[in-house]
Every structure is written in structure tokens, then in C-alpha cells.
């Protein structure tokens, strides 16, 4: 058996080594023009990254925002749209899981709308709201609703019948049963759904913002217009890192609510 501390240190060393090799290979390939001409190398990208991160929150008008400012704009849209979606999806999911009538009347819409790219709703949002900010939130709302809704409904439908029997045998009413039994019992399902919802929302916001102006997605679009590929790589790194943190947060919550042995 390997010592745990040594094994952790080894894993870390391997990761650092692989990163170094990647950075060097990238630099060499770019410098030699092996891919295409003028492809930014890793050194240039890292320099860019340091530049953007050292002063992240400047604001010189919509086409010249600090990367932190853009990131916060995107996060704000995601958080609002996502929270609204979760607030709708959980009660609706519980209803669908509990009632055959709700299930059979709502399920066709869910099944039909779930596979549609949320970006298809973007023109609809623009037409209805005439406001790019609200449209962005609306698109995230549509994006986030399905995984949480479906997981919640599934959780309720597959809840351990023992819990419901205990609750019923004690004469608990519907409200107590939902609040004190069903909701805690399906927390793992809800969180799994919320995690997928967040992941998808974070994917979609970048694409949506290319069409909406401001935000990290628009930053990428803007830098494409500036033909500044290294800045696009900076954005990719920042987006990836933020998505990773968000996902880890839900991973942490899922561990907290893991009732199994």
C-alpha cells in the first residue's frame, strides 16, 4: 500500500508535469506554424491571461469590459434564469411525480421541448421581451428547467414506498408528507438534476451571449472580430474554470445529501 500523502503528491506532480508538456508542445507547434500561421502560442496566451486577470473589472463601454466584469454579467444572467427555473421545476416535478393526471398532461410537452436547443428560443425571447438582458435570462430559464424537472419527477415516482407508508401510518397530511418526507427523500435526485441544469446553462450562456452583447460569450465574439485568438483562449480558460467550480459546488452538495451507506 502506498502512503496516502505520497500518492497525493505524486498525482499532483503528474498533473503539473502533463501541464508543462502541454504548454511546451503548444508553444512549439504554434511557433513553428505547424497548425496554421499566426496561431497564438501558449506563452502569448499566458501573458494575455495574466494581463486580463491582473485588472479584471474595468469598464470602458460595452465593447471594452474587463474579463471579470463580463464573467459577472454572465454569472448574473445564469443565476437569475437558473434560480427561476429551479423554483418552477421542483414544485412542477413533485406534482408530476405525485399525480398521474399531471404526469400524463405535462409529459408530452416535456418530452417534445427537452431535445430542442434552447437557442431556438432566443428569437422568441427577443420578440416578446424586446430586451436582450431578459432574453438571455429567459433562454437560461428554458435551458435549466428540463433536467431539474425530470429528475425531480423521477425521484418522486421512485421514492422508497416505506417512507410514504410511515408517513401515512402516522396520519400525516399531504403538506407534511411533501415537506418533511418527499422533499428530503428526493434531495439527491433534485441535486443531480440541478447539477446537470447548471452545467447546461453554463454551456448555453456562452452561445447565447454571442448574439446578445456583453457577457463572457460576447467577449469571445468581440475578440473574434478583433482576430485576437489568444484572448479567446483566455476566455475559454476562464469559462472552463468557472464551470468547474460551479460543478464542484454541486458535487459537494450531492455528497452532503448522499443518504446511502
Amino acid at each position: 500500500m502506498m502512503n496516502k500523502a505520497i500518492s497525493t503528491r505524486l498525482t499532483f506532480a503528474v498533473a503539473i508535469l502533463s501541464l508543462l508538456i502541454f504548454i511546451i508542445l503548444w508553444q512549439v507547434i504554434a511557433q513553428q506554424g505547424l497548425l496554421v500561421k499566426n496561431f497564438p502560442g501558449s506563452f502569448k496566451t499566458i501573458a494575455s491571461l495574466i494581463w486580463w486577470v491582473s485588472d479584471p473589472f474595468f469598464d470602458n463601454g460595452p465593447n471594452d469590459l474587463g474579463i471579470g466584469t463580463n464573467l459577472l454579467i454572465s454569472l448574473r444572467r445564469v443565476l437569475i434564469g437558473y434560480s427561476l427555473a429551479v423554483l418552477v421545476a421542483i414544485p412542477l416535478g413533485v406534482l408530476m411525480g405525485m399525480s398521474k393526471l399531471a404526469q400524463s398532461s405535462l409529459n408530452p410537452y416535456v418530452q417534445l421541448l427537452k431535445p430542442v436547443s434552447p437557442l431556438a428560443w432566443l428569437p422568441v425571447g427577443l420578440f416578446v421581451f424586446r430586451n436582450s438582458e431578459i432574453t438571455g435570462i429567459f433562454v437560461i430559464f428554458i435551458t435549466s428547467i428540463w433536467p431539474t424537472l425530470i429528475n425531480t419527477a423521477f425521484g418522486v415516482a421512485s421514492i422508497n414506498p416505506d417512507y410514504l407508508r410511515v408517513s401515512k401510518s402516522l396520519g400525516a397530511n399531504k403538506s407534511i408528507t411533501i415537506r418533511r418526507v418527499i422533499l428530503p427523500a428526493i434531495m439527491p435526485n433534485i441535486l443531480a438534476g440541478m447539477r446537470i441544469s447548471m452545467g447546461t446553462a453554463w454551456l448555453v450562456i456562452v452561445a447565447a451571449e454571442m448574439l446578445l452583447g456583453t457577457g463572457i460569450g460576447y467577449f469571445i465574439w468581440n475578440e473574434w472580430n478583433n482576430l485576437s485568438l489568444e484572448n479567446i483562449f483566455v476566455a475559454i480558460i476562464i469559462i472552463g474554470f468557472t464551470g468547474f467550480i460551479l460543478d464542484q459546488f454541486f458535487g459537494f452538495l450531492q455528497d452532503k445529501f448522499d443518504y446511502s451507506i
Partner: protein
Amino acid sequence: MNKKSSKISTSIENYSHLELANLGKIFFKEKKFIDFRSKGNRRGFEAIKDINLKIEKNTFVSIIGPSGCGKSTLLNLIAGLQAPTSGKIIIDGQAIKGPGPDRGVIFQNYALMPWLTTIQNIEFALNTVFPAKTKADVKERARKYLRMVGLEKASNKFPKELSGGMKQRVAIARALSINPNMLLMDEPFGALDALTRSYLQDELLSIWRKNKVTVVLITHSIEEALLLSDKIVLMSSGPSAIISEEISVDLERPRDREKIEQDPRYLKIKMRLEKHLLRETRAVEEVT
């Protein structure tokens, strides 16, 4: 009348606590195809029929029968968790309409809520049944019942940290905490090892002696039924299972595990039960 002399002090209490009158249950399936193998009514599955039974107050009654005959179904009906298709369940002279805190139910899989600690599981029952009680009252009472099953130290543990026997003790404490006068148990010790089972059987007996409760116990263990019960009810194999026999166990209490096994009365009933179970189980095996 020596069998109840320790339990029943006045003859007034000696009336029937629970009465099942022509009780029947048919499960109607929503399946889209017809299962040709299922016997009986094509539209439904008749689990039990024409069940008539009287159980006296504060007695200990076991129900025994081949697996799948409808014992759990019967217990769920008495608990009010399912509605009978026909017949009535009469408790203290009143036909029941659903579940109620007069009956504490104990399930085979303990059915503890995994997101609640031991004491919170009991508090949940108390809060549900007595919404007017104060927090402190509820906590105190939950503690008292945990103490009763010897688990006061485990009050802040989660079910996953407990052994099967400890979980079942929490479930017993939860069922008793609401102060029911009837305890309904569905194979409560079936999943436990032999030693834990004996220990919990003794504990159940001592609880039963101290708290005035009528116990209905589903079991598949002949020895368990004989050790614990005043009366053993035998069910026939399903579908359409009926009560085929009721046997009084006229053995003095307290019963000593080793000693009663030598008792000729014990052996006589045991043989009768074994024969019955063998016959009914054979009937099941030959149908399927």
C-alpha cells in the same frame, strides 16, 4: 385462564380490541396486457378473502402463513394503509376509515428516514401525531423512548451508522412513542441474525408487559410465534387466502426459551404448525 392472568386485571378490558369481519382485498392491476398465469379474476388479483378474526385487548397474536399468501396485505389493511375491497375492520367497536395513531406500525425494513438522526426519526412521528406539543416536550418524550430501547447514546446517529438490530429498535421506539394501543409488526425480525433476533424478542416481550398494547405480529418463524403469542393465526396459501386455523398457545409466561422447547404442549402445537405450513407451501410451489 392462566395465560392472561398477568396481563388482564379486570374482565372489563377483556373485550375484542380488533375485529375483522368478512375482510377481502382484490388488487386491480393497471397492466396493459393480460397475465394468463394469474389465477382467479381476470380483472384483479384476490389476495385475501372472507377473513374473520377477533383479537382481544392486550393480547399477543401472531399471523403465520406461506410467503406471498397475503400477510402483509392483511397487516396493511389493519394499519389503514390500504382500503379493503370488502368487509370491515372494527377497532374498539368502530369501523376504521384509515390509518390512525392508535396503531403503531413496524415494518420489516425498519423504514427509518435516512436524512434524520435516530432521535429526529422519533420526533418526526411525535410532531406529526401531536402537533400541539412543544419542542421540549417532544424531545423529552423521544429521549424517553430511546432510553426504553437502550439507544439513548445513539440519539444523534444517522440510521446508516446503526446495525440492523439497532435500527429495528429505533423503529419500535418510534412506533411506541405515539402511545398506540395496538402494535402492528410485519416480520420485524426477519432480516436479523439469530442472536439479535432473540434479544429483540425478549425486549419486545418486556415492552409488551410494561405498555398496555395489543400486538399483531406477522412472522414466518414457528418458534417465534410460539415463544411470543397468546394466539397463532394460520393463513392458507393464496390467492384468495383465508384463515385456516386459530391456535391458542396456553403456555405460562414468562416463557423460557430452552424450557418451553421441552414442553409437550409446545411440541404438539409446533408439529401442527409445521404440518400446516408444509402443506400450504407445497400448494404454492405446485401452483407456480
